[in-house]
């Protein structure tokens, strides 16, 4: 049973991270927006949904929608002051924006309302799981996996439809510079903002799913490191390819979780092994960059 449980857990994580990776791929792969603070959407989705469901006692679905809306809005808003920044400066600005939100939740423990909830650095526990009472402890993870997969499929369909539309053509042209789309009458800033809003809301969706699965969130789960794990997924899987983004999430999650099995074979302490996970992902990125620049699945040519 241990292995089955682990595989279900792993699949849920893969599903959640695949949503994050699809959403980063929309920004970086298709629009050329190097978002180094992607984790902020994950964080906002998790916190907002937790606040709505735990503190305001609203149903899970409202928490989920609330998290998506707030994260999407945040994406839309941070792209206003940063609209004129060049790619590298934009990356720095997004990194900073993500840290600001994380540190806000770290310090402002009133946000999740004192009383029974600790908040702040202690994190928030006891986040309810949707429809938990209908299932036994053994079957619940399977049900949650279904929820995650439904969300993943919806995300894939929406993002894939968008990237294949006229909207997709415009953002792909923005990826290679502002001049041409501007000369063709496309409001480049607005398109960037729209991309950030869509990507933000799906990042938020992943955050909600994560919070309600684990039942506990704290600011140090949303460190910049998380962003780079998602980056690894896009780089390895293949940028500007939505199937690639999902494949990347699957592979990186396998690597990420592989070290826990190594302890049976290699005489290294568990703590050290945990840190080695990041080394494994680092190597994966380097190998991908060197030998498959476009990732495992290349960008698909759009044919008519």
């Amino acid at each position, binding site marked *: 049973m241990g292995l089955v449980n682990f595989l279900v857990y792993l699949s849920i994580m893969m599903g959640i991270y695949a949503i994050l990776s699809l959403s980063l791929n929309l920004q970086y792969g298709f629009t050329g927006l190097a978002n180094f603070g992607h984790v902020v959407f994950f964080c906002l989705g998790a916190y907002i949904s937790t606040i709505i469901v735990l503190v305001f006692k609203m149903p899970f679905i409202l928490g989920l929608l609330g998290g998506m809306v707030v994260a999407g809005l945040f994406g839309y808003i941070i792209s206003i002051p940063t609209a004129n920044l060049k790619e590298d400066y934009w990356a720095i600005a997004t990194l900073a924006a993500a840290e600001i939100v994380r540190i806000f939740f770290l310090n402002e423990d009133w946000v999740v309302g004192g009383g029974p909830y600790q908040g702040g650095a202690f994190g928030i526990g006891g986040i309810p799981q949707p429809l938990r009472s209908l299932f036994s402890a053994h079957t619940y993870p399977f049900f949650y996996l279904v929820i995650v997969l439904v969300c993943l499929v919806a995300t894939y369909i929406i993002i894939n439809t968008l990237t294949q539309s006229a909207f997709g053509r415009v953002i792909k042209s923005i990826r290679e510079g502002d001049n041409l789309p501007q*000369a063709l009458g496309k409001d480049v800033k607005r398109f960037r903002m729209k991309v950030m809003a869509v990507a933000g809301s799906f990042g938020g969706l992943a955050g909600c799913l994560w919070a309600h699965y684990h039942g506990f969130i704290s600011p140090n789960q949303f460190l910049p490191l998380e962003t780079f794990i998602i980056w690894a997924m896009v780089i390895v899987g293949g940028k500007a390819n939505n199937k690639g983004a999902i494949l990347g999430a699957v592979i990186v999650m396998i690597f990420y979780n592989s070290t826990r099995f190594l302890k049976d074979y290699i005489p290294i302490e568990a703590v050290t092994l945990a840190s080695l996970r990041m080394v494994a992902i680092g190597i994966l990125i380097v190998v991908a960059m060197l030998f498959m620049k476009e990732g495992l699945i290349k960008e698909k040519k759009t044919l008519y």
Partner: protein
Amino acid sequence: MLKVENVHKSFGGILALNGVTFSVEPNSITGLIGPNGSGKSTLFNVISGFYSKDRGEIYFKGKKIEGIEPYRIAMLGVGRTFQISEVPEKMTVLENLLLAPKSQIGEGIFNVFLHPLKIKRENEKLLKDAYEILELVQLYDLRNEYAGNLSGGQKKLLSLGRILMSDPILLLLDEPTAGVNPTLIRDLIVAIKNLRAEKGQTILLVEHNMKVISEICDRVIVLDFGKKIAEGTPEEIQKNEKVLEAYLSGSSKWELLDEDSRGQ
């Protein structure tokens, strides 16, 4: 159609445009020539809003265009190409053309999901237009090739096709025939003339090829050191002493004299 009045633009100590004044009549083809560095491309960039001007006024259809973003100027109906072709490498030739039409329904996020049928019809119409233009610029066989794999001349053709697709009122063409082979240039000349005749479009083009200039332009404006030094019909310009002098004093003297020279 287009009126440029006393426009100045400097980059640091260099006066790229030093009080340029001219106007372009509706439904005309106007050539803009001058030695390298005389300010032709800068002028295009100022008109299309990519550079802000230091002084002067620009009117399009009687309306002042000032301090507005390039995309808004494009929306007003000013289409431009770039001297160094701006071609998204990872988009196919056909995608490049489909990108061009302004305000497509399918560009709205919600429309994509709410109006799939309208968008389907829109796409079919755009595809039909695109195939026609592909035939015109002779890129039909390459329609599913990544634009990044085209040669320099083919990229020029693609830029021209794309701007035709966007259907502007005024076309600013920056060296549309540079790097294009002579036979095709002849076809393009015919195509540009037809365009004016059929659609009544107005064209302002930078060109180094005097053959092209004398065949299609009604009027020619000559720039040197950011100033207009002459204006007239192609015949007048070719006899104008000031113009000959400007070209002879520069390193590019053969551009004007040798009809088949290709400029840059």
